[in-house]
């Protein structure tokens, strides 16, 4: 592992850390514009995080050390994922440390920790949120893996750099299997990132919230880290989607200049993707929790269909 490789790896993580709150701010702006509201500042998430870091952390009397450790672990897992997802470049040193399946495992690790922390204080909303989060999680995870399997069948590899290289160098034709997988991936991403129609990031409506319910007991720096990690998760999912379905403009290898050139392209792609996310969120209504299996089941079936189409047509 060379120094240049390590530096470019750090560069990718740093870019991810910096851009993630911006992506959230951008989606919020788009949502506000689409629903005829005055948009908040693009930099609001940054200010929020800064403000939270300044505050004193208030922790429930009966919280265990697990509760205090969890924000750091979740944040660390998301940083690790950001190092692996090919957002700026494909052949980075850490990219081989985890393939697509291990990446899903990393997301699951973060989810399990946050659910455990939510149960730690022993409040009614915390455990309710934990249960719902794990419920959505076990429905979404198979669908996500099926999407990734479809992509790996095309390229004969589960390693993300290889998948991206294969997909980026194909002739510009639409793979029917990838079309199915793309729709499925969008649906899964909505569920996994606690967006409408599964969850609503904008409300604290007690009976419907999922992700927010788990964070109720967190404050100050712990909350800041979890919010930042959630933003990173959205960023990572967006980058996986972009890498699978629009794999153009990603630098090959740990080349500093190529990575700098790839950054504006990434920002442009994320801007379009964020706008699309806001549009989906504005156009759809939140589903009841027991409609979620239908929603995610559809995603799952689409992904399996994509895989079957791939096996039948060989494309």
């Amino acid at each position, binding site marked *: 592992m060379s120094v240049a490789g390590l530096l470019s790896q750090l560069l990718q993580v740093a870019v991810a850390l910096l851009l993630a709150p911006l992506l959230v701010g951008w989606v919020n702006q788009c949502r506000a514009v689409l629903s005829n509201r005055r948009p908040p500042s693009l930099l609001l998430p940054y200010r929020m995080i800064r403000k939270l870091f300044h505050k004193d952390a208030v922790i429930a009397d009966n919280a265990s050390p697990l509760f205090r450790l969890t924000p*750091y672990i979740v944040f660390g897992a998301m940083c690790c994922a950001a190092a692996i997802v090919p957002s700026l470049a494909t052949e980075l040193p850490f990219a081989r440390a985890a393939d697509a399946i291990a990446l899903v495992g990393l997301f699951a690790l973060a989810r399990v920790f946050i659910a455990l922390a939510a149960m730690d204080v022993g409040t*009614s909303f915390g455990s309710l949120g*934990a249960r719902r989060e*794990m419920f959505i999680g*076990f429905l979404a995870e198979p669908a996500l893996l099926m999407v990734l399997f479809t992509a790996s069948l095309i390229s004969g590899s*589960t390693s993300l750099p*290889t998948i991206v290289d294969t997909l980026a160098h194909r002739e510009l034709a639409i793979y029917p299997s990838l079309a199915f997988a793309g729709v499925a991936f969008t649906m899964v991403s909505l569920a996994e990132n606690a967006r409408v129609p599964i969850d609503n990031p904008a409300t604290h409506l007690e009976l419907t919230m999922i992700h927010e319910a788990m964070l109720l007991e967190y404050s100050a720096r712990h909350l800041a880290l979890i919010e930042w990690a959630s933003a990173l998760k959205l960023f990572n999912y967006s980058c996986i989607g972009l890498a699978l379905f629009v794999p153009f403009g990603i630098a090959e290898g740990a080349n500093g200049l190529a990575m700098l050139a790839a950054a504006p392209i990434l920002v442009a792609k994320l801007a379009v993707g964020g706008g699309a996310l806001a549009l989906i969120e504005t156009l759809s209504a939140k589903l009841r929790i027991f409609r979620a299996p239908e929603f995610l089941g559809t995603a799952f079936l689409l992904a399996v269909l994509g895989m079957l189409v791939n096996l039948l047509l060989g494309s």
Partner: protein
Amino acid sequence: MTSPLALITAAIVAWLVIGGAGIVQPRNLRVVRLLFMLGALVAVAVAAIALVALRAEPQTIVLGLGLPDLPFHLRIDALAAFFLILLGAATAAISLFSSGYFRAGDGTAPGLVCLQYHAFVAAMALVLIADDAYLFMVAWETMALASFFLVTTDHRIAEIRRAGFIYLVIAHIGAIAILLCFGVLQGGRGDYTFGAMREVSLGGAWPSVAFFLALLGFGAKAGLLPLHVWLPEAHPAAPSPVSALMSGVMLKTAIYGLVRVTFDLLHVQIWWWGAIALAIGLTTALFGVVFAAAQTDMKRLLAYSSIENIGVIVSGIALAILFRAYDKPLLAAIALTAALYHCLNHAFFKSLLFLATGSVLHATKERSLGRLGGLIHRMPWVAWLALVGTLAIAGLPPLNGFVSEWLLLQAFLFTPTLPQSTINMLVPVAAAALVLAVALSAYVMVKFYGVIFLGRPREAHLAYAHDAGRRERAALAYLAAGCVLLGLFPASTIAAIDHVNGMLLATTVSRAGESSWLLLAPIATDRSSYSPLIVLVVIVAAVLITIQVVHRLWHGRVRRAPAWDCGFPLQTARMQDTAEGFGQPIRQVFEPFFRMERHLPTPFDAKPRYFVSATDHFWYWLYLPIVRATDAVARLAGLLQRGRIAVYLTYSFVTLLALLFLVR
């Protein structure tokens, strides 16, 4: 007499002696504890010897014991050695734990438990080194009987006697199938040594008959559908170290038997065996995990989770059969490696969790999840060590459960290289079922850990719970360390398993791929790779840097206050989610899996009571009809019984006449 096989035999004798010493003073707790410690040392020795034997050539010994002209044949090869390592490594921890666990109670005296326990362990080791059907069956039955007595340790409770009975019945159904399987395998030559069976090449449908008898017989012991019903009864009934031994080690002897018959004794593998075994394995996995999610008893939950893990292991074996049948040895080796790796993992994390439930049981006298909670404050050692097991069994990186699941998924992804398109079409469905089972197991384990260790204590007396003793902690810590190490160094573990692959499939995974101690890459790095160590280092580094940066740049001040919970003033422990509540979404989504009885209160009830029971369809679809049919046949046969000597003489006379007429 210093060959590994002789040493293992000596260790088995040592276990029997230790067990025998237990009944000299059955009520003397100090002696019994010492004996368990000695048993743990023997187990460590067995693991170490087997580690040597894994690399060595196969060895055989003929012992002149047993019936005249039927000497015992012993043999140790890579497959037996691998399972002996598993047995030794897990038993060492469980014996150490037992030395602090058993105390004088109403049930069997500790000394007697010591005898049964060590006979059980010795019989399991003997199963692994038996080289003829005769000794194998003797050891197998000894194992079943010793574990039956262990299950019924608290035999004063009717429920436990019933559990023991179910266990005994199913164990014997399995034993009959195994006996028949060996009968088929010897191919009419009458030579029941495994060496002779390897020479026989069965023709026609006989290999298939032998395979399915083995699947039935060993499946009954392992807990494959539909013969799984004994597991959720027997595991909760047994004392926790015994549950750990049964779930962590005994189920693996069944896997050993299946692998031995399929890949060693049978000379052919046919693809549709693999397809059927895969279907059974995946159904078992899904069934087990869905039922685990609905359980409210912590040991029952773990028992169902064992069923799930056995399903995963059998899926791996099935995939190996499939690849072997299509002559793809490398892929078969990957699938078999995944299965064996999962055996080892399961031995570690399931033993860890069962022992942790034992500590909880001792500290609180509660087995029901509905009366536990908040134990992380009172029992920090058990709680934090159990957390490792929980994360491992949930299949999360960088721990060990993830590695075997990763390998198995890799094997699934290679299936489209098979020539048969119908099989290729089934892969997505099969992979999806596996992924669903794995994802659900995370749900189950969050429920298990969260309800027992996190939150507020649901009963007042939990405030007096005490942490586990020193030996128990040491045993738990050892198992947790095993989970971590097996997760962090997969390439080294696979190099060990490769000796088994080399013996059974004549190929190895390590040499074919580009794996190093740091990076696991079974085929090539640009195909798939995983490095748990790097993942762990990156996460730990990120955590440490974040803590430092946050505390340096800002501050680390903390204030304690009552829980916020959206400002609701009254918060009691009863308002937390219960085990039933956690199971409710699963019961709703997977409703057809359960046979549910609900009782809803009406608005006019003075004492409203909600009641739901989710039971197994198999009782009603399979077992009860069989019981009823047996009953009916027995009643018909009972008509013959008149209790008068004249009638019986008439029967003899009629039989004699009939025979004379028929045989002549």
